[in-house]
């Protein structure tokens, strides 16, 4: 009895989640109806669990930036730069046997380099936004160019190919029969959800996004919190970069450029308010799953990638219209 009540309470509290789940099921049913033999194969779902963590982490990163009413347009640049820095380092340490056999210690160091890149890049964004008071859009637009530019300078243009095997495991391996990137995503998503819901840091972020003035008068250290949130965004982006470079065994300055729009779309679709103050990891995670199902379905139906871009754009506009309509009727 009590459990049922709790369940209903949950539904009322987060109407958005229910809608998202309904949408996911709808997409699933439509895609199954359109091509049952190909869409329902185990292989299809397995390949989704490999590709979706990158986009999922980038979307969560985007959501964190949006919580304070900002945005981070440099996430793709950070992700690529992290992968490239690690790749360049592996090349430096490579023995005669080649990069693939690099020792575990070096791989660990590579991870630290990549995460450090994300941390520094995020801190740079945060400092530009809090200290120099640049609008997040323009600051991250600029730094995104700088990061991508540095990536081009480091590689000279072409991709860095060849990563250690232990590194590739992060993007390609399996833990208990599940894709490593998927496991990593679930762990990180739970961690971030916990941080946002149950720690002072997360609650402060939400308050700052809801009402910056009230937060200021309540004595919250706005600048420090915003700086920390961009550092967290940067680190999440660099983890996406690690997974991307591990999965493709390569790092390049212009990988995943279409992820930027998709990350924004997913964050908004997942119930994040771009003006700040609202957003959940669960919502974003379901939105990623829904859209991955959608795009894999379209790929099976042999739609071109450009057409999928078109559909993403239409989807984003529809979601905006729908949200506006919902808010008005309330």
């Amino acid at each position, binding site marked *: 009895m009590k459990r049922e009540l709790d369940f209903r309470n949950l539904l009322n509290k987060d109407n958005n989640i229910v809608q998202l789940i309904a949408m996911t099921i709808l997409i699933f049913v439509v895609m199954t109806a359109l091509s049952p033999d190909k869409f329902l194969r185990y292989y299809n779902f397995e390949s989704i669990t490999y590709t979706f963590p990158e986009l999922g982490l980038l979307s969560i990163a985007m959501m964190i930036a949006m919580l304070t009413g900002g945005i981070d347009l440099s996430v793709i640049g950070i992700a690529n730069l992290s992968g490239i820095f690690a790749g360049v380092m592996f090349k430096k340490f490579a023995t005669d046997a080649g990069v693939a056999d690099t020792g575990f210690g070096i791989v660990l160091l590579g991870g630290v380099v990549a995460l450090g890149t994300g941390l520094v890049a995020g801190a740079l964004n945060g400092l530009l936004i809090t200290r120099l008071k640049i609008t997040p*859009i*323009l600051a991250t637009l600029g730094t995104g*160019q700088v990061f991508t530019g540095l990536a081009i300078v480091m590689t000279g243009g072409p991709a860095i190919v060849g990563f250690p095997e232990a590194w590739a495991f992060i993007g390609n391996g399996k833990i208990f029969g599940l894709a490593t990137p998927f496991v990593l995503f679930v762990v990180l998503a739970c961690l971030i959800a916990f941080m946002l819901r149950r720690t002072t840091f997360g609650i402060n972020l939400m308050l700052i996004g809801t009402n910056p003035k009230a937060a200021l008068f309540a004595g919250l250290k706005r600048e420090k919190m915003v700086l920390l949130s961009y550092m967290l965004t940067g680190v999440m982006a660099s983890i996406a970069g690690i997974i991307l470079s591990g999965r493709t065994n390569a790092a390049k300055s212009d990988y995943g450029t279409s992820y930027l729009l998709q990350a924004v779309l997913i964050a908004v679709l997942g119930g994040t308010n771009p003006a700040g103050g609202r957003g959940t990891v669960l919502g974003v995670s379901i939105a990623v799953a829904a859209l991955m199902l959608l795009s894999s379905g379209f790929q099976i139906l042999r739609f071109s990638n450009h057409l999928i871009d078109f559909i993403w754009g*239409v989807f984003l506009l529809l979601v905006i219209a729908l949200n506006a309509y919902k808010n008005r009727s309330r």
Partner: protein
Amino acid sequence: MAWFHKSEVVIAGILVLAMILIGLVNPAFWSLDNMFSLLRSNVIIGIMALGVLLVMISGGIDVSFPAFAVAAMYLTIKGMLYFNYDGVVLPFVAAATMGALFGCLNAFFVYKFRMIPLIVTLGTGSMVRGFLLGVVGTSMININKMPDALIDFGKSDIISMVKPDGTTYGLTAMVAVYVVLAVALHIVLRYTMIGRGVYAMGGDPEAASRVGFNIRKITFFIYCVAGALAGFAGLLHSGMIWLANPRDFVGLELDVIAAVVLGGASIFGGRGSVLGTMLGVFMLVMVKNSLIIMKIDTTWQRVVVGVIIVIATAITAWRDRRANA
């Protein structure tokens, strides 16, 4: 000393300083040939920047215009080939109209649903580009198929000169097109009710609507004109390079926004001028083109543009804060 604090004067000062510096590193910078080609590179980015300026003064931002430009350009040229039409005026009218219609879409979503312009324009841009490449086609239209009238128009020069070795070079007439558009926008922004309304809306939309400005009309005006300018610039571009490439203009939004911010416009709205924007465009194009002259590796181009954006925005943010204090 009041003139000294005008941002246009400051930008012009920095521009002159940078020109002297580049000239010292490589005197070839000052050759008439190089100057003409610099001005030529200003045209397309400049016309698009005029549209972005309009949006930015109103307090919005537009990242969809490169998609609009390429769609208007490609569809117009496809149409010209299909109807076997060879002319200049009608295609430009068609391209600008198409751009304006796309712009209406932006205005509709921004006004009707009160959504952040960045996210709306990200969506419309992706939609239009995806439609163009996914439905209309991805193949380039080369010089042998391009309508002759467009190419001839793109080739026309105002000034032609002959080098000592016999080759000719000149200043393209497209610069005049750019200047005419800029002057027209300047007049609209300065001396018409709707132009003042754009500034008023950028300053404070609520206040603007209280004193009687029609926010809906202004929003549609802004995004339609920005779209029309983008469509026009797109077709002009293909006339100038004798090629219609449906994958063109990817990532151009960053350069154009950088140029507009460099020209002193504020992303919070209410600030910015045509003259400043033209100077900003010239500065950006000059720096990008001069990296080669200054013997800096071109791989650094993106880094330089990024750093310019960050510095320019930091300075404008600092200025805005001082003005408010």
